[in-house]
């Protein structure tokens, strides 16, 4: 009798402890730029990630556990990233980690993930794993298996279809991780197409006046100007091109910031003629039906929180990053990092940004970066951007809605 009582008590305790574990939240940790130069994108990404968390929790969570986010502001400072992820894993004891937004904060986190053998889902980094070759690294950004090259492929493909073909190119960008990657891709394309590089220089990110740089570029008289820039320098370069009266056939390429509302409305008609990468255009909305699943809810919250009210650029991909991780956890029935990585490598995922499959190096298996040209912009209202009519998709072929209008300066008359 005594033994049976003890056995019943032990089984009861075991059942209690099992249910307690089942009810423990599944912690996902990350750093995110909530202040600093990339905070606009960081906050937009966070909204989408929280949307995913709330959607999953409304359905009972993952593996019967509610999702809980543990995140810190990385201040868009790469130096703060290693300590932040170490704290997430050692002190906060998170079960899973994902990255913040952008190359600059992903790259310093990769060595930490390698030490801990963590599966690392990342968001919009331009080839940060190129030098690490970490096998549990995955990237949500549709730049293809060779991201640096895939990023600017559309720009050079569109340029080489012009008649006569361009012969020279100027390459310029900020002294920072992402622009370096974008510029490396541009150099590779220039070499492939036999273009002579007549200007190839970087500038400090805190530059105030970009006119001297644009004048130096103009002095080399390039057919193409490829720019890899972050939001403040994107605005600076475009204003400088306007002030100097830059004469070239194509201008733009890898400018971050033109994808969201604040810079679009600030620059307005100055954007006419600029060629740049995009993730979405209203002109080809029928090819992106899946985005509508989250965009309405996102826009509602974004307006309240003062971040990008359009949200077609980053938020869907941030949501998709979490979807991939969530689907992998469900399929592998746990948080074993090796199993998660193995599953993500071999699976094609259904997400809000469409089907996603990964190449061996963790990048997207195929590229889907749109190269577009802005035109017909008359004012600075947000309404200009809510429907089709301002964007011509130049590349890739399956999304194409027109050809390049060159030279650049003629678009501004």
């Amino acid at each position: 009798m005594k033994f049976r009582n003890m056995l019943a008590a032990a089984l009861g305790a075991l059942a209690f402890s099992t249910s307690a574990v089942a009810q423990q939240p599944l912690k996902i940790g990350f750093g995110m730029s909530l202040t600093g130069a990339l905070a606009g994108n960081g906050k937009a990404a966070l909204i989408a990630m929280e949307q995913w968390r709330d959607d999953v929790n409304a359905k009972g969570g993952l593996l019967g556990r509610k999702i809980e986010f543990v995140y810190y502001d990385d201040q868009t400072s790469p130096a703060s990233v290693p300590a932040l992820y170490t704290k997430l894993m050692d002190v906060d004891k998170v079960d899973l980690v994902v990255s913040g937004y952008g190359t600059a904060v992903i790259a310093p986190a990769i060595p930490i993930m390698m030490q801990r053998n963590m599966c690392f889902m990342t968001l919009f980094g331009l080839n940060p794993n190129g030098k690490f070759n970490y096998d549990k690294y995955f990237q949500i950004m549709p730049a293809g298996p060779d991201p640096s090259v895939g990023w600017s492929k559309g720009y050079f493909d569109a340029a080489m279809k012009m008649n006569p073909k361009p012969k020279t190119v100027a390459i310029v960008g900020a002294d920072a991780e992402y622009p370096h990657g974008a510029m490396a891709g541009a150099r590779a394309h220039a070499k492939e197409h036999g273009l002579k590089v007549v200007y190839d220089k970087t500038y400090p990110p805190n530059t105030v006046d970009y006119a001297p740089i644009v004048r130096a570029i103009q002095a080399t008289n390039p057919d193409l100007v490829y720019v890899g820039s972050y939001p403040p320098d994107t605005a600076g370069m475009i204003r400088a091109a306007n002030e100097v009266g830059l004469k070239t056939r194509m201008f733009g390429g890898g400018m971050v910031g033109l994808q969201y509302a604040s810079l679009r409305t600030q620059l307005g008609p100055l954007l006419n003629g600029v060629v740049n990468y995009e993730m979405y255009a209203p002109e080809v909305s029928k090819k992106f039906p899946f985005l509508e699943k989250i965009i309405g809810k996102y826009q509602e919250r974004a307006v309240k929180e003062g971040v990008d009210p359009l949200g077609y650029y980053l938020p869907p991909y941030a949501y998709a990053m979490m979807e991939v991780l969530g689907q992998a956890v469900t399929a592998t029935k746990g948080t074993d990092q090796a199993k998660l990585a193995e599953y993500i490598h071999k699976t094609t995922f259904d997400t809000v940004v469409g089907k996603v499959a990964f190449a061996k190096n963790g990048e997207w298996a195929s590229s889907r970066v749109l190269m577009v040209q802005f035109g017909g912009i008359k004012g600075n209202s947000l309404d200009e951007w809510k429907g089709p009519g301002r964007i011509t998709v130049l590349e890739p072929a399956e999304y194409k809605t027109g050809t390049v209008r060159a030279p650049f300066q003629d678009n501004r008359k």
Partner: protein
Amino acid sequence: MEASTELFINAIVAGLLLGGFYAAVSVGISISFGMLDVVNIAHPAFIILGSYIAYTANARFGFDPIVTSVVLSPLFFALGLLLYRIYYLCFEKRGQESLRGLAFFFGVLFITEVTLVLVFGVDYVQARTPYTDVTERFAGIDFPLRLVVPFFVSLAMVIGLQFFLTHTFFGRAVLAVAQDQLALRLMGVDPVRVKGLAFALSIATAGVAGALLIVILPVQPSIGREYIGLVFAVCVLGGMGSIWGTLVGALVLGTAESFTATFFGPSWAPAVSFGLLLATLAFRPSGLFGR
């Protein structure tokens, strides 16, 4: 005009215009750090505060940001008075201004930034004026009004400050505080009051500089940190506490930056600017106009 001559003159003009803006953001530091020995590391945060206030008035009511900043400069002056009072009572009076005072201003910097994030969000904003996208061109030389207008406003502010400091009783008292506080006290003047008013003046200039910044560039709450090094470099190059020195130092650094960007590559610009600073300090340790 030949292309190279045109490039050369454009580089000089762009450098001077840029230097004018640098003078506006540095002159407040020249007063607080150079004259009063108050290491106000939070000065750039007040510049950004000025930017956002000017932006709000511009976006909501269509007011010109620079006019707004001049009208609201008494508010910044009052904020400066309050801030100095706290600093004086908590640190300077107790002789703890060196390290704890520095930490205090770091705290003010972060609190101001976070407040701006909470109130305005983190997106880049820029004021829109009729002159923002207008460039005048004479004989191949570009005069972008988004830099020309801030240049002249800055010039007026710096000259006005210099005149005020050298031709008024209060201005001379500020200069005296910088030189000998005891002597000033013996003359029956309260140096703490003079320092408070002078510090307030430096914060008032930050408000105007913020408006100039948001005419030139898009701004987000923590962008001010990027200019901390620059504003202190301008002050040291020009000579601590010298208003003319600040103006000349700013014009020298602006021209050096523009020249380097045009002819040698923009990534060399900081190295050339700070190299110039080091060279100047090697030959004139007190800066160009320092005593």
